């Protein structure tokens, strides 16, 4: 049971760290890396339920779903970043906001 607590605390640390990094980030690539760490934290939190009580199929199903949806979102995000760079020539969200106005 102590292992479940350790994993759960780790997952909360990862989720909050990634959210803070997304807030402070000045680069869209960094924001996407933060999103990836957010997905890691969510996967670990979903997986924590199955620790200690054998293999939990429900937790495994949820993690699989989360992994694939996270990967899809990240793929689209990377493609959008390339398009934004082609159009505006920068990846800084503050500069992008100024360029749009």
């Amino acid at each position, binding site marked *: *049971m*102590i*292992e479940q*607590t*350790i*994993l*759960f*605390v*780790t*997952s*909360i*640390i*990862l989720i*909050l*760290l*990634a959210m*803070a*990094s997304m807030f*402070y*980030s000045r*680069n869209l*690539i*960094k924001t*996407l*890396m933060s999103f*990836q*760490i957010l*997905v*890691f934290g969510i*996967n*670990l939190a979903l*997986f924590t*339920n*199955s620790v200690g*009580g*054998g*293999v939990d*199929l*429900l937790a*495994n*199903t949820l*993690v*699989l*779903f989360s*992994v*694939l*949806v996270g*990967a*899809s*979102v990240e*793929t*689209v995000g*990377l*493609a*959008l*970043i*390339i398009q934004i*760079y082609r159009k505006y020539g920068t*990846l*800084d969200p503050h500069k992008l906001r100024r360029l749009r106005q």
Partner: protein
Amino acid sequence: MSVEISILLCIALIITSVTSLLSKTVSLSLILLFYSSVVLNIIFTIYGAAIIALIHLVIFAGAISVMLLVTIVITGEANLSIGNIKNYVLTIIFIIALSVFLGLNIARELRASSGIPLNGELLEFVWTYRPWDLLILIIILAASMVTALNLLSITREEQ
């Protein structure tokens, strides 16, 4: 599985993630993100979810890392600025303290409810609709691939 190994792996996961987010060099950040993914896969493997670990490794440490690398090469970004680093470090310390407090409290609640057996109807529901679940996953993946290809394609006007 001994608790010490779990603690070591969790510390390694947090350190690689934080260093990856703090690093200003693109290559270092990407390598540390890869290591972070590998450590998470080791955690999955030692707790008996080898298939999830394999899928996670293939997708995040493999495909997504390569796509991130390609994006970095195309955009030519060598410096990943994260703004004011002092504020960010202070936020990290605050977050770790808050997470330990929150995590311990929530884990206590989880422990109290863990004695209740899982509802059989829920598992039956998940198992009955498993093909639909897989179909939705395939549709999401296909849609993301089509969107990415569409966004990456160069039109005649751009050429």
